[in-house]
């Protein structure tokens, strides 16, 4: 998470070695900032601006728009027309709060399931004989070679009443009546966990693979059973991987739209769908933008808090 730290030493060495060509160095340093500016900050500002506007039937369907020909005056006028009406609106209908909460709940549960499933897989991968590891890793990544949509659609065939899963369960005598899984929350969880599991496994694998197994030997040597050694040694030492994996699953899961739309039932409300409805059905770009801005803040806040916490920890341990 603390990617910024990594760049520091390399910048220092650059400073030392590339004397006299300051502009080139500045350019080099500026590239990532320009990237962030163009592809993150600018879109964010545009969306923020729309979220402060009012909806109108026009092209584009909001007001005010920024007319560059009016210069500074137009800019001021634009600012005067801004208001927080759309954000107030979001508090007036409980639908939005419910959508956010429901999305957070679904994302949280999915993340936990992915963690519980992904950890043993990552562990097994990390412990597998070296010559097998790249093959096994490939199997984890392999699904990405197929379109995400096709894979999610394939689950319809598995989960539906006359689907593969019910067929196998009925055939094996585990159930007498076909289960209704498709178009329920269970199907959403299956879809999300399936789609994002590799994002959980890969960071966990990266951490577990680097884990010094002599630590586990040391623990058992000191009287700790292998099972307990997992809890007191392996797990605490893989915390960074757990966090990374959880963020990688949780964040896209909160805003997930496609999986609930294809696999889920109509009664599940998620913020992605609510946003879609605002944007497309209601044509209310300003409210849709406000929903998006709030979602962004909701997702960024825990990351910032987490990073602050990590920095504190790092400072404390220096």
């Amino acid at each position, binding site marked *: 998470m603390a990617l910024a730290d990594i760049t520091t030493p390399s910048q220092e060495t650059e400073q030392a070695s590339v004397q006299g060509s300051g502009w080139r160095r500045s350019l080099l340093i500026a590239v990532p900032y320009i990237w962030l500016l163009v592809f993150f900050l600018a879109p964010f500002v545009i969306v923020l601006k729309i979220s402060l506007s009012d909806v109108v039937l026009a092209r584009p369907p909001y007001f005010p728009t920024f007319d560059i020909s009016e210069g500074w005056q137009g800019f001021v006028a634009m600012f005067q027309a801004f208001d927080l009406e759309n954000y107030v609106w979001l508090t007036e209908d409980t639908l939005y709060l419910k959508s956010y909460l429901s999305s957070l709940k679904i994302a949280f549960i999915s993340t936990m399931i992915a963690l519980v499933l992904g950890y043993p897989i990552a562990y097994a991968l990390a412990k597998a004989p070296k010559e097998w590891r790249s093959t096994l890793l490939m199997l984890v990544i392999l699904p990405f070679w197929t379109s995400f949509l096709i894979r999610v659609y394939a689950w319809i065939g598995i989960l539906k009443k006359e689907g593969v899963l019910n067929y196998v369960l009925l055939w094996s005598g585990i159930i007498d009546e076909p289960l209704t899984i498709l178009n329920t929350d269970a199907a959403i969880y299956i879809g999300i966990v399936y789609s994002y599991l590799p994002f959980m496994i890969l960071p966990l694998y990266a951490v577990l693979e680097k884990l010094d197994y002599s630590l586990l*030997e040391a623990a058992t040597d000191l*009287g*700790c059973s292998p099972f307990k050694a997992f809890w007191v040694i392996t797990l605490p030492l893989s915390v960074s991987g757990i966090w990374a994996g959880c963020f990688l699953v949780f964040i896209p899961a909160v805003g997930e739209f496609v999986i609930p739309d294809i696999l889920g039932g109509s009664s599940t409300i998620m913020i992605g769908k609510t946003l879609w409805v605002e944007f497309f059905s209601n044509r209310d770009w300003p409210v849709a933008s406000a929903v998006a801005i709030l979602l962004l803040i909701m997702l960024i806040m825990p990351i910032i808090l987490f990073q602050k916490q990590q920095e504190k920890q790092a400072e404390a*341990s220096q």
Partner: protein
Amino acid sequence: METLVSTQPVSDFAPWNNPGEVPLVHFDGVTKKFGDFTAIENLSLNIYEREFFALLGPSGCGKTTMMRMLAGFEHPTKGNILLGQGNLQEAPPHKRPVNMMFQSYALFPHMNVEQNIGFGLKQDKTPKAEIKRRVEEMLSLVQLEPFAKRKPHQLSGGQKQRVALARSLAKKPKLLLLDEPLGALDRKLREQTQFELMNIQEQLGLTFVIVTHDQEEAMTVASRIAVMDHGKIVQVATPAEIYEYPNSRYSADFLGDVNIIEGRTDISTGETASLYWSDEEAPLTVSTSLRLPAQTTAWLAVRPEKLRISKDKPPTSDNCIQGKVWDIGYTGNISTYHVKVSNGSILKAQVSNQERLADRPITWEDTVFVHWDKGAGVFLET
């Protein structure tokens, strides 16, 4: 850290010479295979209580495998390992009264020094107060009291090493295994720590088994050394015995510097033997109880410091060879003369520098005589 070295009462402590003594550890015909590779071959060995036992050998000789079998991380393919009277095979690693100090130290990075040292006690559900007392005791033993709250990454190499030692000692194991414990330390710190280890071992009255490839370390700390080669024990004896009376060229060569002269035997008397090492020169005479048939190939091993060197032919000497100074190695306290003899081989003779360098009479290209007593060397058949 200024610990005074108390010379071990080596002469008194020799349980291996007492046939009635029950060994603490008994390897009984142990073989360990990894696939097709035989790491340990039909090995039997006794280690006694309060011993500081060293397993010495080059990497790949099987010494680490033996230690890992003691710790329970590996299991013998054949044979038994007994600890006290019990068969060790049955117990998993976490139920053995054996602790190990890892080569990498294997300190838990997420726990501070205190928690690392107390870890083993905590696993045994030792009362909190008792853990606290033991940890403090260990901290004072390794003189790390001020560092109790530090995490491993905030410690120096020597400090980590001492935490690892304290951690492995905290449970007062019957047997402590040390896997190349000082390998990561620089020379001075290593020497100092060797003496600390010996002190602690003596103070606590525990049995230590150390794995090392460093012969000096083994000789310094060990009550006995097992010299290992390719999964077999070549010789088990006290450092002095191995040094003075190696049983093979391998042993002789592994411990300290040695001249090995190959030749053929004459009929040996049981007291002395003659070794014909060169067609032009007189045979060498060696005291030995070995009786070998005539014309057998045999070797004389003689330590460089046992050789004397002079410009003039000594009036009387059991063995004397003429040669030319080929090279001189000067290491301050000692000078090693490399002398090329008639058959082209080099003999090393060490002379302690009691005189100043400038006064030394022998120099490069000088013709010299290397001579020694018949009892100075060891006669070897392998």
